[in-house]
């Protein structure tokens, strides 16, 4: 998939690629769909003999309730299923295989031990309705993780309930909403900076607020003056990511928190970029009332091709009564789950959180400890600054402010007809997953690079070399970039067609 031999001139590889295309055209797809590989009568699972007397199930439940068939479901034996999905796996870039500097996603190494811990039978086979006294280890793990997250963030209480960052946002905003209601002063607006992730305004709407956009100042950060300008008694909260999506620490955050609090509004800090701040600075000290964590970013749980993650939230003492239920509490009888919280916002999902992700995050925190976590952020910051410094000439950052764990690069290649997308696609030919592109929206053609602390200097140097190489290619042969990628199993995918003529499932031909 990636270029096997990077010393070979890319033009030669492209030539070979063109020669191979004759063959490629015959091959309609890379891997047939599982449904196309199906042959009626095959099966990949054997059931044991029944071992007890029974009438047929259809009689027991009533024929009128039963379906006639499961038309279209594939029929394959185990070896075919294994080969199918293993072949698919080979079509993916992944953090374990490639440099994956996707900005604001924190694609760090996921320690494999953590998967083993989550798979321990004492965790994996624990049913969520298990009585508390038979699940003391799980409850204690949750309590310890809550405590650790509270410590690193400077918050007073943590709930592990939300399934993902966006659900944590919703939980946090509903808590703010409930708090204002309890004070008898319902409020209608949430201020969100123009650099924010799309989930922030989407969560605000879902939580019943009107999203009001705050403009970043000239230097790329949020200014207290702008918050003062937008402030009114209708404002429930400001929702801000710190460091921002530009990788910049919000220098006026304390003053902003004061403005908010003077007006009875809350500060919500989105912890998407928390990987910059472990043992560096605490949200609680910045005046945050609510924060959420993305365990799949900062705390190394695998991203899974788009989840599952986990999005715990932390709050200051005054908001604790509003946290989702159940809460993990300890009394004379040991740990138990407590749902008797009249002010709680309730539940946003079933049971007690994405527990298997919590196990992984806890194992990660144990492995690194206080010093290790502090090193994580420092080295993540060093990596981003190193890339910024090395690429300064052709890919300067969007602002001159100091950056933390990620940097947003810009370029002048549009005058050569080369877009940020072209650069991203060309990076694939170097075996590198592209950074986040066209985000944040405030930076034209943004390239948002988050290298993380688990990459070597050599990897960062290779990335720099690839970017420089691409820059030079853009000067001499821009078409090469516009036609990229050249060395993957597929050439550029037509995303516009997918949207124009949606084909969202396989259907039998007849």
């Amino acid at each position, binding site marked *: 998939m990636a270029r096997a031999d990077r010393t070979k001139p890319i033009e030669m590889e492209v030539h070979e690629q063109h020669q191979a295309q004759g063959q490629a055209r015959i091959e309609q797809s890379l891997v047939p769909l599982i449904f196309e590989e199906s042959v009626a009568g095959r099966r990949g699972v054997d059931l044991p003999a029944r071992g007890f007397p029974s009438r047929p199930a259809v009689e027991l439940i009533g024929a009128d309730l039963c379906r006639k068939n499961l038309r279209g479901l594939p029929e394959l034996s185990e070896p075919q*299923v294994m080969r199918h999905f293993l072949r698919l796996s080979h079509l993916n870039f992944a953090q374990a295989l490639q440099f994956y500097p996707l900005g604001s996603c924190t694609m760090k190494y996921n320690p494999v031990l953590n998967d083993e811990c989550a798979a321990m039978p004492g965790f994996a086979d624990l049913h969520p309705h298990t009585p508390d006294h038979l699940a003391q280890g799980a409850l204690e793990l949750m309590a310890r993780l809550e405590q650790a997250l509270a410590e690193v963030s400077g918050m007073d209480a943590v709930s592990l309930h939300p399934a993902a960052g966006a659900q944590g946002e919703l939980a946090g905003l509903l808590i703010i909403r409930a708090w204002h209601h309890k004070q008898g002063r319902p409020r209608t607006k949430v201020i969100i900076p123009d650099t924010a992730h799309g989930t922030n305004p989407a969560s605000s709407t879902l939580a019943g607020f009107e999203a009001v956009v705050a403009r970043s100042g000239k230097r790329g950060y949020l200014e207290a003056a702008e918050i003062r300008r937008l402030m009114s008694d209708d404002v429930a909260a400001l929702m801000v990511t710190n460091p921002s999506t530009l990788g910049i620490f919000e220098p006026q955050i304390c003053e902003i928190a004061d403005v908010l609090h003077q007006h009875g509004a809350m500060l919500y800090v989105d912890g998407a970029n928390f990987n910059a701040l472990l043992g560096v600075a605490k949200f609680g000290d910045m005046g945050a009332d609510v924060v959420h964590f993305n365990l799949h970013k900062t705390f190394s749980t695998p991203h899974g091709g788009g989840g599952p993650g986990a999005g715990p939230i932390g709050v200051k003492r005054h908001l604790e009564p509003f946290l989702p239920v159940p809460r993990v509490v300890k009394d004379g009888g040991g740990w138990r789950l407590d749902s008797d919280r009249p002010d709680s916002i309730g539940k946003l999902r079933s049971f007690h959180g994405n527990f298997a992700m919590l196990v992984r995050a806890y194992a990660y925190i144990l492995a690194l400890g206080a010093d290790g976590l502090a090193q994580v952020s420092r080295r993540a910051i060093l990596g981003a600054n190193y890339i910024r410094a090395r690429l300064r000439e052709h890919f300067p950052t969007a602002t001159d402010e100091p950056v933390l764990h990620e940097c947003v690069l810009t370029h002048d290649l549009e005058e050569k007809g080369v877009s940020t997308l072209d650069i991203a696609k060309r990076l694939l030919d170097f075996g590198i997953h592209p950074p986040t592109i066209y985000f944040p929206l405030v930076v034209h053609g943004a390239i948002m690079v988050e290298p993380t602390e688990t990459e*070597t200097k050599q990897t960062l140097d290779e990335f720099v070399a690839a970017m420089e190489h691409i820059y030079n290619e853009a000067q001499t042969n821009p078409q090469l970039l516009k036609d990229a990628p050249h060395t993957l199993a597929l050439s550029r995918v037509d995303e516009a067609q*997918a949207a124009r003529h949606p084909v969202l499932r396989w259907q039998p031909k007849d």
Partner: protein
Amino acid sequence: MRFLPQTEAEIAQMLQTVGAASMEDLIAHIPAELRQKAALKLAPGLSEAQVTAQLQALAALNPGAGQFRSFLGGGYYRHYIPAAVRAIISRAEFATSYTPYQPEASQGTLQAIFEFQTLITQLTGLEVANASMYDGASAAAEAVLMARRAAPRKDVVALSRALWPDYRLAIRTYLSAQPQIKIVEIPFDPQSGAIDLERLRAAANDRLLCTVAGYPNMFGVVEPLEAISEIAHRAGAWSISATAEPLALGLLKAPGEVGADIAVGEGQSFGLPVEYGGPGVGFFAARLTHLRQMPGRLVGQTRDRQGRRAFCLTIATREQHIRRERATSNICTNHSLCALAVAVYLSLLGAQGLRELAERNVEIAHYAAERLAAVGVGRRFAGPFFNEFVVEVGDVPKALRAAEGRGLLAGVALGRDYRELQRGLLICATETNQPADIDLLCETLREVA
């Protein structure tokens, strides 16, 4: 620090390139009053062996896992997981990739999700399914929100009281910011354990936005989804089915076949461990005409420049990263790896295996119910059931304690969530239960009943 590769010498080189004297230089611009002076109050880092030992010690404090023969269900189900499922989802190519924004480098994830979407449409009998949601409860909440987007003037949501308490709670929480929407709970018929159709009919007027019913419901009873859908449709409302035990869809009529406009549910039964309640995976299917109102990611088929079939994320103009405050949902990360597990599991079972496994679950549960009835522990409800059912015992806590004493987790007590069912015990039997477990259950419950 085994996860941190940079050596002291490399750090020095990198600092020099950056033009900083030390690591602390890099954070010196953070206001001094915020910069942490003291070390974090956490223990020092541990070796891999030490971490393992600590986690093993905690796992050992969960005797409820593995050391008991279990009849627990009630939203999460114990099923055998084929080794192939674990083998595939533990592949780092799947586990350590992220949302497939770059389709050329993500065809594995994309095609697997496309296959998942197809499988869900086949099971639900609907035309379009998304790339997954967090779980069944949040999917149900998103379904109600979608109905509201399609009919913003309708304001009454009718929930079956026999819908799982967590699903009802999640729907209430997701709707809590829209107080103009009224949620009514339709009681269950005390005889059948299914929704009281008369009460639903009485609530079905032109304000009715949607109905939400379990299929099967919290009591294991198969709701009359066709009748519910008819009542909803006559009022111009949507019928939403929610399924926590998707194995039932291997045998029952597909929700789309009996009138559901949206079918949501929990996919955990299909290849995911119970894991103390998460992560599972929500599924979400609807009719194609409502495509633009759907929440979540969608994978579509297209071509590359050579005309080869390819897959990519599509119809993203509904989503938060494009539409921001006007998005159909705030969902971003979903539960892709769990959706992959479902796709592998269903591919292994296939049409025939899924049907047989569903039948086996019906059979073992009915065998258990009959055996219990024979010792005087009768079913509380008469409605048709899939793999779980409610029995009545004199003293539920006492029965559960007695069962624990014999190495059994006998079921889920219903009294906490249903005041009217103080004597109700929800018993789930799956293919993982042996006839000998049922013998022991009968013996125990006979003694305390």
